């Protein structure tokens, strides 16, 4: 099995086979976060390892999920960034000075967002500037430095990925502090969406972790990467930026686990059964039924783990999987917490039967008793009015 562990032609061709002509996408912080929500799903793991873009694979089928963000939402983000940068980063300097207690009025600000091409070459150059500037922390720069659009290069499951941190403030009390800008407001000290805040902090934690690795590669003590990050958001009802500082030590540990859990591309490719490919599924020239059948075969082959909330927000396959679960009557359809009440029971139809008193196998027995009871009670004491009138369609 050693062949699995070394990238080699065999692995490469296996990878090509898995990908086929399916659209691919590089790993970035958002993909990583999305993958974290579905990492226990074998299909999702293979797709991520092969960098298959799960959002596009099912394009033009009834199972393609509405994806993407309002142009206004994006516009707001752009505007907020612009506000921080205009007039030579005046606002950013102010916010950092107020928030970090270090004077950034005359800080050196490396603007890595402009001039560099939006491609690997550009990213690579930015990553070089980033790492060399970060390394200067070892000499303890006499003045603070801000990397605007720092780029960290990290190996994700055997493939290089580039990660763009909004800000990196170097030399604040001998520390490097990661900053993340978000255009959603913090109203009266409270975020309008705690999950969005959590995701933002996870992002920042990812940069801290990758920053540490970048420093270590250069033999610099990574302890100077601060555990606490800054979040810059509009305050209250306008766009005026405000800075929040938050300790993300435990989130950093989570991201460390996550990176550890990312499957290696070559290993995955080589170890996936020969029959598995996303090629047919993504082939828009084929009829939908063919593509969805192919999807069914692939997921049956690899296995799928479906949890409504996490899958529906993070994976382009969710609707297609949900459809399969419905077809199989899989209890997971309605969520793991309920499925937990059904140990040893194969399908929802069987649950219904047991509810009506079908003889339970030893495996089913423990769960069957409360089900039968629930069913009896519902029919017996809840003289529940049934839907009568039908909508005139």
């Amino acid at each position: 099995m050693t062949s699995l562990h070394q990238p080699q032609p065999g692995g490469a061709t296996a990878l090509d086979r898995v990908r086929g002509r399916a659209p691919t996408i590089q790993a970035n912080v958002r993909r990583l976060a999305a993958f974290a929500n579905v990492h226990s799903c074998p299909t999702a793991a293979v797709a991520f390892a092969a960098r298959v873009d799960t959002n596009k694979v099912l394009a033009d089928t009834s199972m393609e999920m509405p994806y993407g963000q309002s142009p206004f939402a994006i516009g707001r983000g752009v505007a907020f960034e612009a506000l921080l940068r205009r007039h030579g980063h005046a606002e950013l300097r102010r916010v950092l000075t107020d928030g970090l207690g270090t004077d950034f009025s005359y800080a050196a600000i490396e603007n890595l967002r402009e001039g560099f091409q939006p491609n690997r070459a550009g990213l690579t150059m930015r990553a070089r500037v980033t790492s060399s500037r970060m390394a200067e922390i070892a000499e303890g720069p006499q003045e603070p430095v801000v990397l605007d659009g720092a780029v960290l290069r990290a190996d994700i499951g055997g493939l290089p990925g580039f990660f763009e941190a909004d800000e990196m403030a170097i030399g604040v009390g001998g520390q490097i502090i990661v900053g993340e800008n978000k255009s959603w407001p913090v109203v009266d000290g409270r975020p309008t969406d705690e999950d969005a805040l959590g995701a933002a902090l996870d992002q920042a934690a990812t940069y801290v972790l990758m920053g540490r690795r970048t420093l270590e590669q250069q033999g610099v003590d990574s302890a100077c990467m601060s555990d606490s990050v800054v979040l810059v958001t509009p305050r209250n009802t306008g766009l005026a930026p405000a800075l929040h500082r938050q300790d993300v030590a435990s989130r950093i540990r989570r991201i460390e686990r996550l990176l550890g859990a990312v499957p290696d591309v070559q290993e995955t490719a080589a170890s996936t059964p020969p029959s598995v490919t996303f090629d047919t599924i993504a082939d828009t020239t084929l009829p939908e039924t063919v593509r969805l059948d192919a999807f069914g075969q692939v997921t049956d082959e690899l296995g799928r783990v479906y949890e409504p909330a996490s899958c529906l927000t993070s994976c382009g396959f969710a609707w297609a999987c949900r459809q399969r679960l419905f077809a199989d009557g899989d209890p997971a359809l309605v969520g793991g917490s309920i499925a937990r009440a059904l140990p040893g029971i194969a399908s929802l139809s069987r649950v219904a039967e047991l509810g009506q008193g079908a003889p339970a196998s030893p495996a089913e027995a423990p769960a069957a008793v409360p089900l039968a009871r629930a069913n009896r009670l519902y029919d017996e004491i809840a003289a529940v009015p049934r839907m009568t009138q039908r909508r005139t369609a």
Partner: protein
Amino acid sequence: MSTAMEALFAARIYAEGQALRRTTLRHVHLADPPLAIAVWRLGGERFRAAAIAWGPLDGPFQLAVPGEPRNRDLYFAALQPFAADLCARVRRAAVSREVRQRGSVIEAVPTDALQIVVPNRATVSALGLLGRYLAYLSDRGGVAPDPVLVEAGRHLRFYARNARVPGQALLLPLDRLVADHWATLLSPFEQANLAALDAQIEPEPGRHPFDASAAAEVSARIGPEPTEDIDRVTGALLAEFNAARSSSTDPAVVEPLAQPLRSHYRDLVEPVWQLMQRVVARERQLTAAPSVSRRFSADGEAFGRHVDWVIPGGYYRTTDTPRQAAITLRRLEDALAHYEADRAVEDPACMIPYLLDGDAIRGTVASVAETKVVVKVRAVSRAVIAVDSPDPVTLPGGKLLWWTATAADQPWQVESVQPNGTGSRVVLMLTAKPTAERLPAVGNVITLSTLCTGRSGFWLLPPVEPPWTHRPDVALLEGEPIDAGDSEQPVAAVDGATVPDPGRYT
């Protein structure tokens, strides 16, 4: 929330192709008609309603479309009629009152507070944010905003905050109303989509609820947050609008130009409005539970206090003081306990989970006897009943249970539980003087549960002056005006397609 019950619901709906009612009664007040509000925002702009539709749900809606909601003048101009109408309705609802005395306190409580229904919880928070924005407007930018905007803001903010109270019906998100009264195949996450819920309950004939809701998810758009496809259209129309008006805010100029945007949003609101009408009509078919009116009159008290505070010009803090938070927490917890108890005690269907989770027993009264027991050196008479439950009961001795018929009164104490055929015989002793109404008759099928609907002794409000422990060492420095940073330049929409990774699913 019994997982066994949930599992059974899922299984039956799957097998029978039919959503199931969770309740035999309606546990939430529904005005006839309620005031309905539907909101569409610009994507990502939490304080900018691109369209507000409102009106009594039994009729057509009025629609406010600012055109460019990020322009203060246009925004306020468009919101004005909505705000004025809302304020008028609130004030009208606060007129007719009944005097109520509680302890030493005498209150004039509005008899029918204004109920607002919205499609979903997301709209509740959207209205809360809109209220937060309007309630603290200053004359920043030279022009003082129309006072009705500020007043409406305070009303919206009150409604949104009061929506935290379990069982309240002042601001009713219909997705929760439906999810509380119907079991579907939708996971809690998917239940946020009112159209999907409705489709599961009333699928087109011959369609399985699952397929119906899946289809609804594809087609239906509820708001307040627009999906990309919607805002692509909005973006184009808005660009034309802004170009055409060339920074004019003169109503005469803007009105006609906003027409395309208006019809754009009218088309979006239309189906949502019908959906809300259908949902409310359906739930109104159910008889209201007895405690519904009590809960709504509690809402009335809150409503009355709000109006009496705000109309004379009272302000609310943007954040709670430690004292307010402590009081609120306690009120909310009381409300929750009472709501859950009332539901289950009044509605057998809602009692099932408690029966399944071992927090309630149901059976036939096999015997009723009176005995004497010694309590604190005095012999007092007590009643002892034996209840035969068809199901095996596991209850620790000494556990206190309330008979649903006297759930506000004294509890029964579990004396013993013996196996009895396939079920159990439970012997209980009344913890109070046996009286006729406290005793069931032999042969009655009764339910006893851990739920008590009695009101616990009233508690006193904590001191106004916070103790030193809850005051910061150094007083926080004075902040800038509350609406600092308000009114930014409009921002051009950006083509999502040009952004490499536009984020998560919508």
